[in-house]
Protein backbone atom coordinates (compact mmCIF):
# COMPACT_ATOMS: atom_id res chain seq x y z
CA UNK A 1 0.00 0.00 0.00
CA UNK A 2 2.73 2.45 0.98
CA UNK A 3 4.69 1.62 -2.17
CA UNK A 4 1.73 2.51 -4.36
CA UNK A 5 1.21 5.69 -2.31
CA UNK A 6 4.79 6.82 -2.79
CA UNK A 7 4.76 5.83 -6.46
CA UNK A 8 1.62 7.88 -7.10
CA UNK A 9 3.07 10.94 -5.34
CA UNK A 10 6.24 10.59 -7.42
CA UNK A 11 4.22 10.08 -10.60
CA UNK A 12 2.10 13.16 -9.99
CA UNK A 13 5.14 15.24 -9.08
CA UNK A 14 6.88 14.26 -12.33
CA UNK A 15 3.68 15.01 -14.22
CA UNK A 16 3.43 18.42 -12.57
CA UNK A 17 7.14 19.02 -13.21
CA UNK A 18 6.68 18.26 -16.89
CA UNK A 19 3.83 20.75 -16.97
CA UNK A 20 5.52 23.25 -14.69
CA UNK A 21 4.34 26.21 -16.74
CA UNK A 22 0.84 25.60 -15.32
CA UNK A 23 2.18 25.80 -11.79
CA UNK A 24 4.17 28.88 -12.65
CA UNK A 25 0.98 30.52 -13.95
CA UNK A 26 -0.77 29.86 -10.66
CA UNK A 27 2.09 31.40 -8.69
CA UNK A 28 2.23 34.40 -11.04
CA UNK A 29 -1.52 34.80 -10.55
CA UNK A 30 -0.94 34.91 -6.81
CA UNK A 31 1.77 37.56 -7.16
CA UNK A 32 -0.30 39.69 -9.52
CA UNK A 33 -3.49 39.55 -7.48
CA UNK A 34 -1.64 40.64 -4.37
CA UNK A 35 0.08 43.49 -6.19
CA UNK A 36 -3.19 44.87 -7.55
CA UNK A 37 -4.49 45.98 -4.17
CA UNK A 38 -1.91 48.68 -3.42
CA UNK A 39 -2.71 50.13 -6.87
CA UNK A 40 -6.38 50.12 -6.01
CA UNK A 41 -6.13 51.45 -2.47
CA UNK A 42 -3.11 53.73 -2.60
CA UNK A 43 0.30 53.39 -0.99
CA UNK A 44 -0.46 54.66 2.55
CA UNK A 45 1.83 52.33 4.58
CA UNK A 46 -0.40 52.23 7.64
CA UNK A 47 -3.41 51.19 5.56
CA UNK A 48 -1.38 48.63 3.58
CA UNK A 49 -0.09 47.05 6.76
CA UNK A 50 -3.69 46.72 7.87
CA UNK A 51 -4.94 44.96 4.75
CA UNK A 52 -1.69 43.08 4.01
CA UNK A 53 -2.50 39.71 5.64
CA UNK A 54 -6.01 39.67 4.19
CA UNK A 55 -4.85 40.39 0.66
CA UNK A 56 -2.09 37.79 0.70
CA UNK A 57 -4.41 35.18 2.17
CA UNK A 58 -7.20 35.83 -0.36
CA UNK A 59 -4.61 35.72 -3.15
CA UNK A 60 -3.27 32.37 -1.94
CA UNK A 61 -6.78 30.98 -1.55
CA UNK A 62 -7.81 31.97 -5.08
CA UNK A 63 -4.65 30.66 -6.72
CA UNK A 64 -4.90 27.37 -4.82
CA UNK A 65 -8.48 27.01 -6.02
CA UNK A 66 -7.34 27.82 -9.56
CA UNK A 67 -5.20 24.70 -9.90
CA UNK A 68 -7.77 22.35 -8.32
CA UNK A 69 -9.90 21.27 -11.28
CA UNK A 70 -6.77 19.99 -13.01
CA UNK A 71 -6.14 17.64 -10.09
CA UNK A 72 -8.60 15.02 -11.37
CA UNK A 73 -9.72 16.45 -14.69
CA UNK A 74 -6.67 15.29 -16.68
CA UNK A 75 -6.83 11.77 -15.21
CA UNK A 76 -10.57 11.72 -15.88
CA UNK A 77 -10.09 12.85 -19.46
CA UNK A 78 -7.57 10.17 -20.42
CA UNK A 79 -9.34 7.54 -18.30
CA UNK A 80 -6.35 6.78 -16.09
CA UNK A 81 -8.64 7.59 -13.18
CA UNK A 82 -10.65 4.43 -14.01
CA UNK A 83 -7.59 2.28 -13.32
CA UNK A 84 -7.36 3.90 -9.90
CA UNK A 85 -11.05 3.27 -9.20
CA UNK A 86 -10.50 -0.41 -10.05
CA UNK A 87 -7.22 -0.78 -8.15
CA UNK A 88 -6.90 -3.12 -5.15
CA UNK A 89 -5.51 -0.30 -2.99
CA UNK A 90 -8.40 1.69 -1.47
CA UNK A 91 -9.32 4.76 -3.49
CA UNK A 92 -9.05 7.08 -0.48
CA UNK A 93 -5.35 6.23 -0.13
CA UNK A 94 -4.72 7.00 -3.80
CA UNK A 95 -6.69 10.20 -3.51
CA UNK A 96 -4.68 11.27 -0.47
CA UNK A 97 -1.51 10.76 -2.49
CA UNK A 98 -2.86 12.89 -5.31
CA UNK A 99 -3.91 15.68 -2.95
CA UNK A 100 -0.52 15.51 -1.21
CA UNK A 101 1.28 15.92 -4.53
CA UNK A 102 -1.06 18.81 -5.45
CA UNK A 103 -0.34 20.43 -2.08
CA UNK A 104 3.41 20.04 -2.56
CA UNK A 105 3.41 21.32 -6.15
CA UNK A 106 0.76 24.05 -6.01
CA UNK A 107 0.53 25.26 -2.43
CA UNK A 108 4.04 25.01 -1.04
CA UNK A 109 5.37 27.60 -3.58
CA UNK A 110 2.67 29.96 -2.28
CA UNK A 111 3.91 29.48 1.27
CA UNK A 112 7.43 30.47 0.25
CA UNK A 113 6.39 33.43 -1.88
CA UNK A 114 3.85 34.85 0.57
CA UNK A 115 6.48 36.46 2.88
CA UNK A 116 8.04 38.19 -0.11
CA UNK A 117 4.65 39.60 -1.02
CA UNK A 118 4.03 40.47 2.62
CA UNK A 119 6.99 42.84 2.40
CA UNK A 120 5.10 44.83 -0.21
CA UNK A 121 2.59 45.54 2.54
CA UNK A 122 5.23 46.55 5.07
CA UNK A 123 4.69 43.59 7.39
CA UNK A 124 7.40 43.00 10.00
CA UNK A 125 9.62 39.90 9.83
CA UNK A 126 7.77 38.19 12.66
CA UNK A 127 4.40 38.77 10.95
CA UNK A 128 5.82 37.39 7.70
CA UNK A 129 6.94 34.27 9.52
CA UNK A 130 3.49 33.74 10.99
CA UNK A 131 1.95 34.47 7.58
CA UNK A 132 3.98 31.67 5.99
CA UNK A 133 3.29 29.35 8.93
CA UNK A 134 -0.48 30.01 8.82
CA UNK A 135 -0.48 29.37 5.06
CA UNK A 136 1.45 26.15 5.53
CA UNK A 137 -1.03 24.99 8.19
CA UNK A 138 -4.12 26.17 6.32
CA UNK A 139 -3.43 25.06 2.75
CA UNK A 140 -3.81 21.29 3.34
CA UNK A 141 -7.49 21.78 4.18
CA UNK A 142 -7.81 24.09 1.18
CA UNK A 143 -6.47 21.37 -1.10
CA UNK A 144 -8.63 18.66 0.46
CA UNK A 145 -11.91 20.61 0.43
CA UNK A 146 -11.11 21.77 -3.10
CA UNK A 147 -10.43 18.17 -4.15
CA UNK A 148 -13.88 17.18 -2.89
CA UNK A 149 -15.41 19.86 -5.12
CA UNK A 150 -13.12 18.83 -7.98
CA UNK A 151 -14.24 15.20 -7.68
CA UNK A 152 -17.91 16.18 -7.47
CA UNK A 153 -17.65 18.18 -10.69
CA UNK A 154 -15.72 15.57 -12.69
CA UNK A 155 -16.42 15.81 -16.37
CA UNK A 156 -18.93 18.66 -16.07
CA UNK A 157 -18.90 21.67 -18.35
CA UNK A 158 -17.70 24.79 -16.58
CA UNK A 159 -16.26 22.73 -13.73
CA UNK A 160 -13.66 25.40 -12.95
CA UNK A 161 -16.26 28.03 -12.12
CA UNK A 162 -18.46 25.54 -10.28
CA UNK A 163 -15.58 24.45 -8.05
CA UNK A 164 -15.08 28.08 -7.02
CA UNK A 165 -18.77 28.44 -6.17
CA UNK A 166 -18.83 25.25 -4.10
CA UNK A 167 -15.58 25.80 -2.33
CA UNK A 168 -15.38 29.46 -1.29
CA UNK A 169 -17.98 29.35 1.51
CA UNK A 170 -16.18 26.32 2.93
CA UNK A 171 -12.85 28.19 2.78
CA UNK A 172 -14.06 31.03 5.03
CA UNK A 173 -13.11 29.53 8.39
CA UNK A 174 -9.56 28.88 7.17
CA UNK A 175 -9.34 32.39 5.71
CA UNK A 176 -10.61 33.99 8.94
CA UNK A 177 -8.28 32.01 11.19
CA UNK A 178 -5.29 32.64 8.93
CA UNK A 179 -5.81 36.38 8.82
CA UNK A 180 -6.52 36.58 12.56
CA UNK A 181 -3.23 34.80 13.22
CA UNK A 182 -1.23 37.37 11.29
CA UNK A 183 -3.16 40.32 12.70
CA UNK A 184 -2.56 39.02 16.20
CA UNK A 185 1.21 39.12 15.64
CA UNK A 186 1.00 42.56 14.05
CA UNK A 187 -0.81 43.87 17.14
CA UNK A 188 1.61 42.12 19.47
CA UNK A 189 -0.65 39.29 20.66
CA UNK A 190 0.33 35.64 20.34
CA UNK A 191 -0.96 33.95 17.16
CA UNK A 192 -0.89 30.53 18.78
CA UNK A 193 -4.62 29.87 19.25
CA UNK A 194 -5.36 30.58 15.59
CA UNK A 195 -2.46 28.51 14.31
CA UNK A 196 -3.58 25.61 16.51
CA UNK A 197 -7.12 25.95 15.16
CA UNK A 198 -5.80 25.98 11.60
CA UNK A 199 -3.78 22.85 12.30
CA UNK A 200 -6.79 21.18 13.94
CA UNK A 201 -9.00 22.03 10.96
CA UNK A 202 -6.42 20.65 8.55
CA UNK A 203 -6.06 17.44 10.55
CA UNK A 204 -9.83 17.01 10.60
CA UNK A 205 -10.04 17.44 6.84
CA UNK A 206 -7.14 15.01 6.34
CA UNK A 207 -9.19 12.48 8.32
CA UNK A 208 -12.53 12.98 6.59
CA UNK A 209 -11.46 14.40 3.21
CA UNK A 210 -10.13 11.30 1.43
CA UNK A 211 -13.28 9.31 2.25
CA UNK A 212 -15.45 12.13 0.87
CA UNK A 213 -13.30 12.48 -2.25
CA UNK A 214 -13.37 8.73 -2.90
CA UNK A 215 -17.17 8.73 -2.47
CA UNK A 216 -17.45 11.68 -4.84
CA UNK A 217 -15.37 9.88 -7.48
CA UNK A 218 -17.51 6.77 -6.97
CA UNK A 219 -20.61 8.89 -7.52
CA UNK A 220 -19.15 10.30 -10.74
CA UNK A 221 -18.55 6.78 -12.01
CA UNK A 222 -21.79 5.10 -11.01
Amino acid at each position, binding site marked *: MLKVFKALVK*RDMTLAWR*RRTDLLNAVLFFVMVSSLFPLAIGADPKLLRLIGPGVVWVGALLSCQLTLPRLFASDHA*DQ*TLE*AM*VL*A*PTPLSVLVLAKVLSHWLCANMPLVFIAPVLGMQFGLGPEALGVLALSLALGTPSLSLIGAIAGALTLGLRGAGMLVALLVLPLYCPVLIMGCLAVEATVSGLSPEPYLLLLAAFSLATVAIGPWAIATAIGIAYE
Partner: protein
Amino acid sequence: MLQVKQLTCVRADRPVFQGLSFDLKASRLMQVVGVNGSGKTSLLRILAGLLKPAEGSVSWRGMPIEQQTSDYSLARVYMGHANALKGDLSAMENLHWACLLAGRDPTQPVIAEALNHWGLNRRHHLPLRVLSQGQQRRAALARLSLLLDAKLWLLDEPFAALDTEAQEALEHLIARFLDEGGSVILTTHQAFGLSPRITDRVDLDRLRASC
Protein backbone atom coordinates in the same frame (compact mmCIF):
# COMPACT_ATOMS: atom_id res chain seq x y z
CA MET B 1 -15.80 -18.10 -11.38
CA LEU B 2 -17.80 -15.11 -12.66
CA GLN B 3 -21.56 -15.48 -12.02
CA VAL B 4 -23.94 -12.95 -13.53
CA LYS B 5 -27.63 -13.11 -12.64
CA GLN B 6 -30.54 -11.22 -14.27
CA LEU B 7 -28.38 -8.21 -15.23
CA THR B 8 -30.33 -5.16 -16.40
CA CYS B 9 -28.72 -1.99 -17.71
CA VAL B 10 -30.55 1.36 -17.91
CA ARG B 11 -29.13 4.45 -19.61
CA ALA B 12 -30.86 7.89 -19.25
CA ASP B 13 -34.01 6.23 -17.89
CA ARG B 14 -34.24 3.93 -20.95
CA PRO B 15 -33.57 0.20 -20.45
CA VAL B 16 -30.75 -1.04 -22.72
CA PHE B 17 -30.72 -4.80 -22.02
CA GLN B 18 -32.47 -7.04 -19.49
CA GLY B 19 -32.26 -10.44 -17.87
CA LEU B 20 -28.67 -11.32 -18.82
CA SER B 21 -27.33 -14.33 -16.88
CA PHE B 22 -24.30 -16.51 -17.41
CA ASP B 23 -21.63 -18.37 -15.44
CA LEU B 24 -18.09 -18.05 -16.82
CA LYS B 25 -15.66 -20.87 -16.00
CA ALA B 26 -11.84 -20.83 -16.28
CA SER B 27 -10.12 -20.59 -19.70
CA ARG B 28 -13.31 -19.60 -21.56
CA LEU B 29 -13.45 -17.03 -24.35
CA MET B 30 -16.73 -15.11 -24.49
CA GLN B 31 -17.61 -12.75 -27.30
CA VAL B 32 -20.24 -10.06 -26.78
CA VAL B 33 -21.95 -8.97 -29.99
CA GLY B 34 -24.67 -6.46 -30.71
CA VAL B 35 -25.27 -3.32 -32.75
CA ASN B 36 -23.80 -0.04 -31.61
CA GLY B 37 -25.67 1.27 -28.62
CA SER B 38 -26.84 -2.19 -27.57
CA GLY B 39 -24.86 -1.78 -24.32
CA LYS B 40 -21.70 -3.79 -25.05
CA THR B 41 -19.44 -1.20 -23.41
CA SER B 42 -21.88 -0.74 -20.55
CA LEU B 43 -21.90 -4.50 -19.96
CA LEU B 44 -18.11 -4.63 -19.73
CA ARG B 45 -18.07 -1.62 -17.41
CA ILE B 46 -20.66 -3.29 -15.17
CA LEU B 47 -18.61 -6.50 -15.07
CA ALA B 48 -15.48 -4.48 -14.27
CA GLY B 49 -17.30 -2.75 -11.40
CA LEU B 50 -17.18 0.73 -12.92
CA LEU B 51 -20.92 0.96 -13.54
CA LYS B 52 -23.72 -0.13 -11.21
CA PRO B 53 -26.42 -2.22 -12.92
CA ALA B 54 -30.07 -1.16 -12.52
CA GLU B 55 -30.89 -4.72 -11.46
CA GLY B 56 -29.13 -8.05 -11.12
CA SER B 57 -25.82 -8.94 -9.58
CA VAL B 58 -22.27 -9.79 -10.58
CA SER B 59 -20.34 -12.13 -8.30
CA TRP B 60 -16.76 -13.38 -8.42
CA ARG B 61 -16.27 -16.78 -6.77
CA GLY B 62 -19.63 -16.39 -5.02
CA MET B 63 -18.99 -12.89 -3.62
CA PRO B 64 -20.72 -9.85 -5.15
CA ILE B 65 -17.99 -7.69 -6.64
CA GLU B 66 -19.06 -4.53 -4.77
CA GLN B 67 -18.44 -6.09 -1.37
CA GLN B 68 -15.00 -7.56 -1.91
CA THR B 69 -12.06 -5.25 -2.39
CA SER B 70 -8.69 -6.60 -3.46
CA ASP B 71 -9.43 -10.19 -4.57
CA TYR B 72 -11.47 -9.23 -7.64
CA SER B 73 -9.30 -6.17 -8.33
CA LEU B 74 -6.22 -8.41 -8.56
CA ALA B 75 -7.99 -10.99 -10.72
CA ARG B 76 -9.69 -8.71 -13.25
CA VAL B 77 -8.04 -6.58 -15.94
CA TYR B 78 -10.23 -4.04 -17.76
CA MET B 79 -9.25 -2.33 -21.00
CA GLY B 80 -11.62 0.21 -22.46
CA HIS B 81 -11.58 1.98 -25.82
CA ALA B 82 -9.12 4.60 -24.57
CA ASN B 83 -5.47 3.72 -23.99
CA ALA B 84 -5.64 4.98 -20.38
CA LEU B 85 -2.07 6.26 -20.58
CA LYS B 86 -0.61 9.66 -19.70
CA GLY B 87 0.76 11.52 -22.73
CA ASP B 88 3.43 13.29 -20.67
CA LEU B 89 4.89 10.08 -19.23
CA SER B 90 7.05 7.63 -21.17
CA ALA B 91 5.85 4.13 -22.05
CA MET B 92 8.12 2.71 -19.36
CA GLU B 93 6.78 5.02 -16.64
CA ASN B 94 3.19 4.47 -17.74
CA LEU B 95 3.46 0.69 -17.65
CA HIS B 96 5.39 0.66 -14.38
CA TRP B 97 2.63 2.74 -12.77
CA ALA B 98 -0.19 0.70 -14.35
CA CYS B 99 1.27 -2.56 -13.02
CA LEU B 100 2.00 -1.10 -9.57
CA LEU B 101 -1.61 0.08 -9.44
CA ALA B 102 -2.79 -3.41 -10.38
CA GLY B 103 -0.88 -4.81 -7.42
CA ARG B 104 2.16 -6.13 -9.29
CA ASP B 105 5.72 -4.74 -9.28
CA PRO B 106 7.57 -5.74 -12.48
CA THR B 107 11.23 -4.79 -12.79
CA GLN B 108 12.51 -2.53 -15.56
CA PRO B 109 13.90 -5.33 -17.78
CA VAL B 110 10.57 -7.20 -17.65
CA ILE B 111 8.72 -4.11 -18.85
CA ALA B 112 11.38 -3.40 -21.48
CA GLU B 113 11.03 -6.95 -22.80
CA ALA B 114 7.22 -6.53 -23.04
CA LEU B 115 7.64 -3.24 -24.89
CA ASN B 116 10.12 -4.82 -27.32
CA HIS B 117 7.71 -7.70 -27.88
CA TRP B 118 5.22 -5.06 -29.02
CA GLY B 119 7.71 -3.38 -31.36
CA LEU B 120 8.50 -0.29 -29.25
CA ASN B 121 12.19 -1.14 -28.98
CA ARG B 122 13.92 2.19 -28.97
CA ARG B 123 10.97 4.22 -27.67
CA HIS B 124 10.78 3.20 -24.01
CA HIS B 125 11.66 6.62 -22.64
CA LEU B 126 9.92 8.97 -25.07
CA PRO B 127 6.83 10.82 -23.81
CA LEU B 128 3.89 8.92 -25.24
CA ARG B 129 2.40 11.95 -26.91
CA VAL B 130 5.22 12.02 -29.50
CA LEU B 131 4.43 8.42 -30.59
CA SER B 132 1.87 7.61 -33.29
CA GLN B 133 -1.65 6.47 -32.45
CA GLY B 134 -0.79 2.88 -33.41
CA GLN B 135 2.33 2.85 -31.23
CA GLN B 136 0.38 4.25 -28.27
CA ARG B 137 -2.19 1.48 -28.75
CA ARG B 138 0.64 -1.10 -28.68
CA ALA B 139 1.97 0.41 -25.48
CA ALA B 140 -1.51 0.00 -23.95
CA LEU B 141 -1.66 -3.63 -25.12
CA ALA B 142 1.81 -4.25 -23.70
CA ARG B 143 0.16 -3.90 -20.28
CA LEU B 144 -1.68 -7.18 -20.96
CA SER B 145 1.58 -9.03 -21.49
CA LEU B 146 2.58 -7.93 -17.99
CA LEU B 147 -0.72 -9.08 -16.43
CA LEU B 148 -0.78 -12.71 -17.56
CA ASP B 149 -1.15 -13.81 -13.93
CA ALA B 150 -4.65 -12.28 -13.77
CA LYS B 151 -7.75 -14.50 -14.03
CA LEU B 152 -10.18 -12.42 -16.11
CA TRP B 153 -9.58 -10.02 -18.99
CA LEU B 154 -12.38 -7.64 -20.00
CA LEU B 155 -11.39 -6.19 -23.38
CA ASP B 156 -13.56 -3.59 -25.13
CA GLU B 157 -12.87 -3.54 -28.88
CA PRO B 158 -9.25 -4.68 -28.43
CA PHE B 159 -8.69 -5.12 -32.19
CA ALA B 160 -9.90 -1.64 -33.11
CA ALA B 161 -7.31 0.38 -35.13
CA LEU B 162 -4.70 -2.39 -35.05
CA ASP B 163 -2.52 -3.38 -38.02
CA THR B 164 -2.45 -7.09 -38.91
CA GLU B 165 0.89 -7.69 -37.18
CA ALA B 166 -0.39 -6.24 -33.87
CA GLN B 167 -3.66 -8.14 -34.29
CA GLU B 168 -1.79 -11.46 -34.58
CA ALA B 169 0.39 -10.61 -31.58
CA LEU B 170 -2.74 -9.90 -29.53
CA GLU B 171 -4.37 -13.14 -30.66
CA HIS B 172 -1.29 -15.13 -29.60
CA LEU B 173 -1.31 -13.35 -26.26
CA ILE B 174 -5.00 -14.11 -25.66
CA ALA B 175 -4.47 -17.75 -26.68
CA ARG B 176 -1.56 -18.02 -24.24
CA PHE B 177 -3.68 -16.43 -21.48
CA LEU B 178 -6.51 -18.89 -22.15
CA ASP B 179 -4.11 -21.84 -22.05
CA GLU B 180 -2.83 -20.65 -18.65
CA GLY B 181 -6.37 -20.89 -17.26
CA GLY B 182 -7.48 -17.27 -17.62
CA SER B 183 -10.83 -16.32 -19.18
CA VAL B 184 -11.55 -13.43 -21.53
CA ILE B 185 -14.69 -11.47 -22.32
CA LEU B 186 -14.25 -9.24 -25.35
CA THR B 187 -16.36 -7.23 -27.75
CA THR B 188 -15.36 -6.91 -31.40
CA HIS B 189 -16.96 -6.26 -34.77
CA GLN B 190 -14.34 -7.74 -37.07
CA ALA B 191 -13.69 -11.48 -37.45
CA PHE B 192 -10.51 -12.55 -35.74
CA GLY B 193 -8.20 -15.55 -35.71
CA LEU B 194 -9.43 -16.91 -32.40
CA SER B 195 -13.02 -17.49 -33.63
CA PRO B 196 -12.69 -21.29 -33.36
CA ARG B 197 -11.76 -20.91 -29.68
CA ILE B 198 -14.88 -18.91 -28.76
CA THR B 199 -16.75 -20.88 -26.10
CA ASP B 200 -19.60 -18.48 -25.20
CA ARG B 201 -21.46 -15.81 -27.15
CA VAL B 202 -23.77 -13.13 -25.75
CA ASP B 203 -25.98 -11.39 -28.29
CA LEU B 204 -27.26 -8.20 -26.67
CA ASP B 205 -29.69 -7.58 -29.53
CA ARG B 206 -31.70 -10.63 -28.44
CA LEU B 207 -31.77 -9.21 -24.90
CA ARG B 208 -32.89 -5.76 -26.03
CA ALA B 209 -35.32 -4.60 -23.40
CA SER B 210 -38.91 -3.94 -24.54
CA CYS B 211 -39.20 -0.16 -24.27
